């Protein structure tokens, strides 16, 4: 019940902010952006796998939401609405990028993981190396997926979105979205067999250290 009260209070605050923005107060929009940026940036980051593209997609999503704010009827919360817009923006960027032949090379040369991504501070240098290698392998595996497979997989498995939402975002039937997820998992499974070996090595390293200690 307290959660419901908090949610409804937030909704009231958001409605008031939206009313002010629609009335011409542009700076009030920053409140909405601050509140929903983490979720939006997370999904754009997961779909695009690039900080630059994720920020671009997030900005585009907030800009589109602003321009359509007068038509926003409030059937869903603003957060859900802008999240879905962000999904579409990310997908557009991924599709645009997939036509660029040089994209994979640039990403593979870069550092795995961005400066703004969370990392555990308690990892040892060896673990960091293993984590880094594991991350590179995961990224490489993800790059074997088509934009649709990647987006469908990210939204279903990482973002826990229902299949009909994913199908709507991709503009395909639900069954096609489901098949895209299945194909993605199957490809990742094959690509990730080396990661499994790394994990085993990591486990073995940890055991050896414990024995030495």
């Amino acid at each position, binding site marked *: 019940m307290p959660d419901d009260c908090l949610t409804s209070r937030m909704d009231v605050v958001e409605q008031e902010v939206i009313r002010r*923005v*629609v*009335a*011409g107060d*542009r*700076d009030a*929009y*920053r409140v909405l*952006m*601050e509140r929903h*940026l*983490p979720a939006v*940036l*997370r999904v754009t*980051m*997961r779909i695009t796998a690039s*900080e630059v593209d*994720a*920020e671009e997609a*997030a*900005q585009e999503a*907030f*800009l589109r939401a*602003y*321009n359509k*704010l*007068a038509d926003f009827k409030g059937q869903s919360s603003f957060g859900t609405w802008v999240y879905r817009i962000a999904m579409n923006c990310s997908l557009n960027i991924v599709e645009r990028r997939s036509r660029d032949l040089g994209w994979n090379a640039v990403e593979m040369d870069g550092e795995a*993981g*961005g400066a*703004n*991504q*969370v990392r555990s501070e308690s990892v040892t240098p060896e673990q960091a190396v293993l984590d880094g290698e*594991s*991350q590179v392998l*995961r990224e490489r595996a*993800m790059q074997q997926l088509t934009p649709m497979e990647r987006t469908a*997989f990210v939204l*279903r*498995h*990482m973002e826990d979105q229902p*299949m009909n939402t994913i199908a709507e975002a991709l503009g395909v039937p639900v069954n096609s979205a*489901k*098949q895209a*997820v*299945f194909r993605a*998992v*199957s490809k*990742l*499974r094959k690509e*990730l067999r080396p*990661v*499994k070996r790394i994990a085993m090595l990591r486990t073995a390293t940890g055991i050896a250290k414990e024995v030495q200690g």
Partner: protein
Amino acid sequence: MTIDENELIAYHLGELSALRKRAVQAALEKDATLAAESEEIAETLRAFSGGPVPVVDAALVERMWQGVRPSLAVLEPRKKEARWRWMFGFASGVAACAVVMLLLFVHRVPHTQEAVVQDGAAPAQSETAAVQHNESPMIQELHDRGAAKTVRYNGKPGPLTMVPVEDKGFAGHLDAAERLLTQVNHEEGPLPAETRGEVHRLLLQNAVYQQRAQVKGDYATANVMDDLGRVLVTLDAAPPQSAEAADAFRLEMNVGDVLFDLRILHHNKLQER
């Protein structure tokens, strides 16, 4: 039961029905190879669980806001005039339809009453009433023509009047005269002897009714009776002759106009009763 990779993936993603899920669980307990494959899929999914989450700090928010802010145009509240205009148009349309329906209803009322009166009419007049009932479009036409000629006789109102016709004998006279003129108008050749007798009888009656209407100040009726009287006098006085001469005579009398006036008077009478 065969369980393929897709079904195992669906199992781990929670996309199976409860029944199918139990079936897969049962198969996994029995088949070690399948269980190993299932574990590999689960491990793959675990490897991608969560993943890196971007840290949204104040600097990032500021950067994002500065990236968006210049592109934000000042929004204006959606004007409601268009909506009101649309509603006003709709309401006007509904009102216009209501007026049209009302007018149609008002036009229909006299005919309905006429039908009721005709159903209860005297047996002597039932034949004419039945004809009129079947000829309602014709009555409407008469109405229209009569309405266009409301001033016909020296600036006085024409025969189409709402003044009640009280005399039942007069109504019978009108009925008989109308039938006679209809017969005269449609027959060819000289009039039969019995018709000539009816003409003479009506001529005598008509003089009385014409006089009575004039005394009562009902000049419209008196004028119609006068016209009818002239036709009846001509018919009564005309000697038996050849068919061609009789037809020329009918044209000269202009029986149609008098018949028209009579029908209107008769119609008024039925309506008032």
